[in-house]
């Protein structure tokens, strides 16, 4: 290919800056918006799905509460608590239930080390709790089976609390007092915002010391074979009905026993996210079409405006092909350069947003991350840019072909 053509075109682009920038802008802007849209969608998706990450998604959490309806002669606001009967019901009554792991919580204990004290809740747990909640151990270990069997007085503290209690000391092996009772610290885990910073102790220890009645108010179960929202819903209803018979509360009293299925939550969130993704794609395609229309319009007008110039060029010896080729190459160069600029700016901006999010953590409100890693599939962006480039070239080609079809003398008369 003759390099002279390129230099002639670059030259004409420089001289006609407004025209060049107007043509290019619609491309850059379209690509830029598309990237922002899709990245934002991805960031939201990554953030929300990230909250489920590492946690076992087939868990159901059951909390006992207060009745909110009168039933069978019982008055409202009766406290429901779980005991061994409930545990047996869960273990024996449902084929879908895999594991049954009760949790005991004791609120507002003073945690004391030397002269420092903080207030925190104790949570009597089984080792499975770590897997259910994706507890990240930073130091030492989590509660293990031996702790449970021997009812050891050991505890796993959140890093936030450790920072408050210990200055320059290694907390592992140190003894802290929960109220009057001494526990040895065996591990430190990463607190998850304000949401999870309880002090973990073995469930059996908690039962023995704080809960001689052996009652409990929360139990986690894992389930098998419930893969969709529908079957989950049915299972939860059956579970509630069983509790309703056992504790004599109205079957439609949702406050008496609160059942939260993480899988159902997950499935619902996913379907919402898919909806959002489709919505973003529709807007994205709209943006793309707007860009295509914009660039086509400007190319059409530009070529029409240049009819006389083409007439002059042809009068002094330009062949029709070379005029069309000039227009196509010019469209190609402008759309490619500005498409690249749009891509660069869009991806650049999202990288900056990503960096800001990661360094300041503004996108997580303590308990939930809502915006993580807002990046976009490069293949999608490149395809979009290619579509714009093709549109720009075609929008230049057709009017240019028309412009060189008229006799040069008519083109010269064109104003």
């Amino acid at each position, binding site marked *: 290919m003759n390099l002279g053509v390129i230099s002639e075109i670059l030259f004409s682009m420089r001289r006609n800056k407004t025209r060049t920038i107007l043509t290019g802008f619609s491309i850059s802007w379209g690509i830029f918006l598309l990237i922002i849209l899709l990245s934002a969608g991805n960031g939201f998706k990554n953030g929300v799905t990230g909250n489920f990450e590492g946690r076992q998604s087939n868990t159901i959490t059951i909390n006992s509460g207060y009745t909110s309806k009168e039933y069978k002669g019982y008055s409202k606001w009766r406290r429901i608590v779980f005991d061994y009967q409930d545990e047996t019901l869960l273990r024996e009554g449902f084929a879908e239930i895999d594991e049954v792991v009760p949790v005991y919580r004791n609120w507002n204990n003073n945690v004391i080390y030397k002269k420092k004290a903080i207030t925190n809740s104790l949570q009597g747990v089984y080792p499975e709790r770590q897997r259910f909640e994706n507890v990240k151990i930073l130091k030492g270990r989590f509660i293990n089976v031996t702790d449970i069997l021997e009812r050891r007085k050991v505890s796993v503290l959140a890093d936030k609390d450790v920072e408050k209690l210990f200055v320059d000391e290694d907390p592992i092996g140190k003894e802290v007092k929960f109220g009057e009772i001494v526990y040895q610290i065996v591990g430190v885990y990463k607190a998850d915002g304000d949401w999870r910073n309880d002090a973990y102790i073995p469930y059996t220890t908690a039962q023995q010391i704080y809960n001689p009645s052996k009652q409990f108010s929360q139990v986690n179960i894992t389930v098998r074979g419930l893969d969709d929202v529908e079957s989950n819903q049915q299972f939860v209803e059956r579970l509630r009905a069983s509790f309703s018979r056992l504790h004599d509360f109205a079957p439609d009293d949702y406050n008496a026993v609160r059942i939260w299925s993480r899988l159902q939550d997950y499935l619902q969130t996913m379907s919402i996210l898919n909806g959002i993704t489709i919505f973003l794609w529709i807007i994205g395609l709209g943006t793309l079409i707007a860009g295509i229309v914009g660039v086509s319009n400007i190319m059409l007008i530009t070529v029409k405006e240049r009819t006389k*110039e083409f007439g*002059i*060029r042809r*009068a*002094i*010896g330009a*062949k029709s092909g070379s005029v069309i080729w000039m227009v196509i190459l010019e469209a190609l160069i402008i759309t490619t350069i500005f498409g690249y600029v749009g891509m660069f700016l869009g991806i650049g901006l999202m990288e900056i947003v990503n960096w800001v999010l990661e360094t300041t953590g503004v996108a997580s409100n303590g308990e939930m991350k809502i915006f993580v890693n807002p990046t976009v599939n490069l293949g999608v962006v490149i395809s979009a840019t290619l579509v714009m480039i093709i549109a720009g070239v075609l929008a230049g080609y057709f009017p240019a072909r028309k412009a*060189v079809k008229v*006799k040069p003398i008519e083109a*010269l008369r064109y104003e």
Partner: protein
Amino acid sequence: MLTINNLHKTYFGASPLHVLKGINLHIKEGEMVVIMGSSGSGKSTLLNIIGILDNYDEGEYYLNNLLVKDLSENKSSEYRNRYIGFVFQNFNLISYKTALENVALPLYYQNISRKKRTAKAMELLERLGLADWSGHFPNEMSGGQKQRIALARALITNPKLILADEPTGALDSKTSEEVIDLLKDINRETGTTLVIVTHEQMVAEKAERIIRIVDGVIEQ
């Protein structure tokens, strides 16, 4: 240089317009010819056909002993570029190019390098006393200057034939005379054949030969 035999041209519009009704014309190499006629007589149409900017329906046109008839668009462009230089009434300079770049443009279509084009165009502008204006854009120049730039553009390919369609139509009388004198000098110095369409008496007086067209035929 060029021979035209019994040339006919009709514009097929809403009502067909028979503009040229059998033109016979012979112009020798190195001649300076003025074509005169009232508006609508067909003089510009004839010039456009000579310049291969327009086609004709009947008859024959030989340019440099080549039959110019039903040429492809590309062949016409090539002939125009190689044999013919144009000067138009309204200059037809490209507005976003400087004087120098306008002058050099025909060489671009002969695939001559930018460096050589620029050098040759500069040389020509110096010869025409326009070197100071080489970097100016058309809208920064007077009509006379623009027409001389256009003339330089016509000359740069060393054409055998220069066609000027009302070259003084947009100029005042003093400038007109200067431009015509310049054309005449070029004709004399380089031996380039010159065909000028005009309706101005002053221009006609400078010519060696005047052809009058009346109602589509040459008046004898």
